[in-house]
């Protein structure tokens, strides 16, 4: 029975990783590419770690597999957030069919500040002290 689970998780995990890699090639935009690697890629790697836990029924291996799974699932969103933030500040272009970019009107990319007001309204309100740094 555990052999069946090993084979199942191996195949499904590798399939998810392949879907993630396919998305990295096919998607038109950095943010969409990150979306495929973060979700499908991380899930695939985690499922392969679960397959190892089913194949070696020892406590040490199971603990390590769960550690890999937890680590991949915890760090993939953080890494995606950091890279996406850096790429947005650097000015990587979005897809030309992007419908809405709310950060564009609220994020001061020079001072690395995110405001709740729109930037042009804020500049109208505070003529004296705009962009202190």
């Amino acid at each position: 029975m555990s052999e069946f689970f090993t084979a199942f998780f191996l195949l499904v995990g590798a399939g998810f990783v392949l879907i993630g890699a396919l998305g990295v090639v096919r998607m038109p935009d950095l943010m969409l590419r990150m979306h495929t690697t973060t979700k499908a890629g991380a899930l695939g790697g985690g499922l392969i770690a679960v397959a190892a836990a089913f194949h070696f029924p020892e406590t040490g291996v199971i603990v390590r597999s769960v550690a890999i799974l937890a680590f991949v699932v915890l760090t993939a969103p953080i890494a995606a957030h950091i890279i996406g933030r850096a790429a947005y500040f650097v000015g990587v272009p979005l897809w030309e069919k992007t419908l809405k970019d709310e950060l564009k009107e609220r994020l001061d990319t020079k001072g690395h500040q995110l405001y709740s007001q729109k930037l042009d309204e804020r500049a109208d309100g505070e003529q004296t002290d705009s962009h202190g740094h």
Partner: protein
Amino acid sequence: MPTWVITVTYLLLCLALILGFFRLVRGPSLPDRVVALELIASITVGLIIVYAIHHGMPYFIDVALVLALTGFMAAVGFARYLERGGSRHE
């Protein structure tokens, strides 16, 4: 477990590795390459685990764990470099 399962898993992961390498070479911007590198790191973690299962050696799982840690650190480092004003065309 039938042996073709291991073979098919190796094939799928290698195909994913080729696709990730294509995006790594192609670019067009540095964050794209960082994303491709992160994907390649997680594919390599998968390959190491499949190798450990194939040869019945559970010690290699430690290698996969360390590699997962290192890939995350590399992504954070690249992001810091980009935000501190690195060029984005390389």
